[in-house]
């Protein structure tokens, strides 16, 4: 058996394993996906909103929080990280409009990352629970109230929500809308095996005591939301996800911005893996599943794209030479013999993996119910997402590792 065939078989096996795992978790828990506990306690909540140059969205974010409808929301702490636009001015207007509820503060100097501004804002929170929302995230009415019930279980350290794309006008935005839906679905499934690996910035609530005990957000990490989740898991706390609590976030509209954002996510992810590498195959689900799952899925992606690129480049070079030689000798550029349609077992395996992942994506896609004002991505976006969008992931990861090696750690 050829080396590449062996690699392909291992690749298919691992991919099939993860797909079956998710499908089984889904089948076992599909009736519990939307469930959330009704709180027995009246938890006081403070929400911290870090902000840097977000004059266009910060007002709407504050207003959404004010209108959220959770009666024990004590403070909305808006932290300006020394913006160069009118963000701080807008915050101050809201502080004036909602005295006692909205608090606008400014960091002494620009911290350079969201973690710095979040930690600064957290100093002003005195409530039992502390939540964080991005300055371009719009939590849906009632979302906070739905999340707090999970904290009745004293082992719960954090609760995350359903993050969806707010803007869906251009094609890139619609692709991200599908991606966010699939991520949301996968994250909820991971909750059933205690393996949620991120509490994303658009809306997450933490138990303040644990949040402070574990040392708050790591300001050196580019994805403080991944790092803090792993930190909580390493300390033995549980992470929950409240699917009905939705928050809409503004996704990048331009490829350059999107690529930069994904690069940061991947660089932060790699940083986190290295920080927690000592837990590999130890320490509960963090070491036995989250870490290996993270590493394996990345390796699979990188390995897959490397093999495909290798084969494509070889075929391309071969074709170029063949065309050039054919032209020199007046030979046919293409004959019927060049088209081989005889299938092989690897093709069958590839089709099985693809069909399973396509089914999984469709289940995720149709599992969510959204307000009609949000345009559902269509068949075209779904096709591009399945065939092209996902293949870019490994390229971003390789670039991220390269940048980290070169010492780029800027937000």
């Amino acid at each position: 058996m050829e080396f590449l065939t062996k690699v392909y078989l291992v690749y298919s096996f691992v991919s099939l394993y993860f797909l079956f795992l998710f499908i089984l978790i889904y089948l076992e828990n599909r009736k519990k996906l939307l469930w959330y506990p009704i709180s027995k306690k009246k938890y006081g909540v403070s929400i911290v909103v870090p902000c840097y140059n977000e004059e266009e969205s910060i007002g709407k974010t504050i207003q959404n929080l004010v209108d959220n409808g959770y009666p024990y929301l004590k403070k909305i702490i808006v932290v300006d990280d020394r913006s160069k636009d009118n963000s701080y001015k807008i915050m101050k207007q809201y502080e004036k409009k909602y005295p006692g509820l909205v608090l606008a503060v400014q960091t002494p100097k620009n911290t350079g990352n969201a973690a710095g501004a979040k930690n600064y804002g957290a100093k002003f929170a005195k409530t039992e629970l502390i939540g964080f929302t991005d300055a371009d995230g719009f939590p849906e009415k009632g979302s906070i109230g739905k999340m707090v019930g999970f904290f009745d279980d004293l082992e719960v350290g954090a609760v995350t929500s359903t993050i969806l794309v707010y803007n869906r006008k251009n094609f890139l935005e619609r692709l991200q809308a599908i991606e966010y839906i699939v991520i949301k679905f996968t994250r909820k499934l991971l909750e059933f095996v205690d393996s949620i690996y991120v509490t994303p910035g658009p809306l997450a609530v933490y138990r303040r005591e644990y949040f402070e005990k574990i040392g708050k957000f790591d300001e050196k990490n580019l994805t403080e939301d991944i790092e803090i989740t792993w930190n909580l898991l390493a300390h033995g706390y549980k992470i929950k996800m409240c699917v009905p609590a939705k928050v809409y976030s503004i996704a990048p509209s331009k490829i350059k911005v999107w690529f930069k954002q994904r690069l940061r996510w991947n660089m932060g992810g790699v940083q986190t893996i290295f920080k927690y590498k000592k837990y590999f195959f130890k320490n509960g689900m963090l070491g036995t599943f989250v870490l290996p799952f993270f590493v394996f899925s990345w390796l699979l992606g990188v390995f897959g794209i490397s093999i495909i690129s290798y084969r494509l480049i070889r075929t391309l070079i071969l074709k170029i030479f063949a065309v050039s030689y054919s032209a020199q000798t007046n030979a046919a550029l293409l004959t019927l013999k060049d088209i081989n349609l005889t299938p092989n077992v690897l093709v069958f395996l590839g089709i099985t993996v693809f069909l399973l992942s396509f089914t999984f994506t469709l289940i995720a896609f149709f599992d969510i119910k959204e307000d009609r004002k949000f345009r559902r991505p269509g068949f075209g976006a779904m096709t591009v997402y399945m065939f092209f969008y996902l293949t870019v992931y490994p390229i971003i990861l390789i670039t991220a590792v390269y940048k980290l090696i070169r010492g780029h750690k800027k937000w």
Partner: protein
Amino acid sequence: MVNTKRWVFMQALLLTIVIFIMGMYAGVIFEEKKFAEANAYFTASEVSLMDVLALNELMSSKSVTCTDFTQANFNLLERVYEEAVKLEEYESSGKITESIKSEHKKYDMMRTYLWINFIKLKERCPTQYHTLVYLYIYNQDDLVKKAQQNVWSRILFEVKQDKGNKLALIPIAADNNLSSLKLLTIDKNITKYPVVIIDEKYVFSELTSAADLEKYLQ
């Protein structure tokens, strides 16, 4: 609760193993079926070869003409050529087992034998046909050489289409470690592949157009 969680990981693993083994098993059956088909073709060709050999033994007999001998060899060559094309298709589907690839060597052996037979035939009978032997490397890793081989196949296919029964086209993989073939190539001082030999006289190691080759086949 913890056990239930662990169980789902085990269930997924078991399911993957079962599906994977079933897939591999189906793959092996599929490849073995192709191998059986290829083997059946070969057995039939082998019978024809024996028939040609028997015919050779009758060469001294005046009741068998040179045309009969040539035709019998040509018929077998055509058959072997068509089967080789089918075999090539099957080979690309053989990923798990190596059985189909071993068939290739058998066919190369048969074609080498046919080449030798044609050489002998030329000595005994007046030349009514041309032989064009194409020696190539089966496991070619060099992309430039691989591209050259692809183009050679196209050129030779074109030549064969033009010349029909007046040309015996014999493609043989030179890296199959056949001692008879080795001897023939040493005799012709051939060290580089791919190479085309017309009538055991003209050797072409550089790509040559169909029109230029046909000049030697008049």
